[in-house]
C-alpha cells in the first residue's frame, strides 16, 4: 500500500471551465449576470422588466435554465437578441447550472451581437451557490412573500452575491416581512452587497436596479478597454 498526498480541489474542473467562459465573454464585450432565486421569486419577471427598460440602450441575450419546459424561453424570445434554453432535466444533474452547461449555451448565442447576457439559473437557493459559471455578477432574487429569514436559512448563496433584489414589494402590506432583519442578515454575511426593493408587477424600484446593471456593464467594459 502506498499513500499519495494530494490536496486537490474537486471543483477545479468547473472553475477552470468558468474561467474560459469568462474569457470568451470578455473577448466579445459581453457582461453576464447570473440570476439565482428560489422557484417563483420572479427571476423571469425581473429579466423581462430589465429588457423592457434597457433594450433601447443595449443588445440583450438570455439563457434560461429550467428542469423542464421552454415556458420561460417562450416568454422572453421576442424581447431579446438571442435566447437559449437549457433543460437540465435531460442532464445527470438538474438542480443548478454549471460552467460546462454555460459553455454549451454560449456556443449557441451570437455573442458579437450581445452587450448584456442575463442567465436565469434553476430555481434553487442551495445548489447554484456551489458553482461559478464565468459570470461577472451574481445576483439573488428574493421576494417579500418568501419571508425575511431566507438569508438566515440559506446563507451561502447570499454570502457570494454582488446584489440582492427583493421583489414583490407591492405585496409588502399583506405579509410579515421585517426589512431590518433581512438587511442585517445579508449585510452581516456580505457587507458589500447592494440591495434593491422593487416590484416587477408595478415597475416600482426597477430604475435603480437597471442603473446598477448599466454601471456594472460600463465599468466592466472600461476595464476591458484599458487592458
Amino acid at each position, binding site marked *: 500500500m502506498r499513500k499519495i498526498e494530494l490536496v486537490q*480541489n474537486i471543483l477545479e474542473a468547473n472553475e477552470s471551465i468558468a474561467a474560459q467562459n469568462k474569457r470568451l465573454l470578455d473577448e466579445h464585450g459581453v457582461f453576464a449576470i447570473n440570476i439565482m432565486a428560489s422557484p417563483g421569486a420572479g427571476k423571469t419577471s425581473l429579466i423581462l422588466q430589465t429588457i423592457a427598460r434597457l433594450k433601447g440602450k443595449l443588445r440583450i441575450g438570455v439563457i434560461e435554465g429550467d428542469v423542464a419546459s421552454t415556458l420561460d424561453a417562450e416568454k422572453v424570445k421576442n424581447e431579446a437578441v438571442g435566447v437559449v434554453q437549457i433543460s437540465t432535466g435531460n442532464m445527470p444533474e438538474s438542480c443548478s447550472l454549471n460552467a460546462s452547461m454555460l459553455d454549451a449555451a454560449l456556443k449557441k448565442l451570437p455573442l458579437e451581437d450581445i452587450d448584456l447576457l442575463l442567465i436565469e439559473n434553476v430555481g434553487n437557493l442551495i445548489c447554484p451557490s456551489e458553482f461559478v459559471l464565468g459570470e461577472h455578477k451574481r445576483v439573488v432574487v428574493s421576494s417579500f412573500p418568501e419571508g425575511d429569514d431566507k438569508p438566515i436559512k440559506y446563507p451561502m448563496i447570499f454570502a457570494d452575491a454582488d446584489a440582492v433584489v427583493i421583489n414583490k414589494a407591492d405585496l409588502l402590506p399583506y405579509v410579515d416581512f421585517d426589512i431590518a432583519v433581512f438587511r442585517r442578515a445579508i449585510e452581516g454575511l456580505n457587507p458589500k452587497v447592494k440591495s434593491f426593493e422593487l416590484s416587477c408587477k408595478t415597475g416600482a424600484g426597477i430604475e435603480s436596479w437597471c442603473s446598477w446593471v448599466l454601471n456594472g456593464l460600463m465599468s466592466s467594459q472600461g476595464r476591458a478597454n484599458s487592458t
Partner: protein
Amino acid sequence: MHEFGVTESIIDIALKEAKKAQARKITKINLVVGELTGFMPDCIEFYFDFMSKDTVAEKADLHFESAPAQVRCRSCLTIFHPKDTLWACPECQSQGAEIVAGRELYIESMEVE
C-alpha cells in the same frame, strides 16, 4: 442533488493520479467536505459505486472528513463555530461574520496498491 458532477471529478482526479503512480488498484480515497457546503457523502458514495465500475477505483473505500465551519466576527474579530443560524458572536453578541472555513471540498490523499 448536484453530487453527480462532483463524483465524476473525484474519479477523474483519482484515476489520473493512480496512472501517474502506476497503481493497479485504488483502495481508499480520503475526502474533506466543509460543513457549509451542500455536498452529501451518502450521495457521492451512491454515484461512486456505479461510476467507478471497471476502473482501478472500483470498490475503493471513500473516507469523508467534515471540515467544521468557522466564521470571524466583523466587530471584535473573534473566530467561532456558528451554532445558531444567526451567526451571533459568542463574545460581543453582534451579528455579522465572515466565513473563514467550512466551504472546502477536496481530495486530501489516496491509498493505492
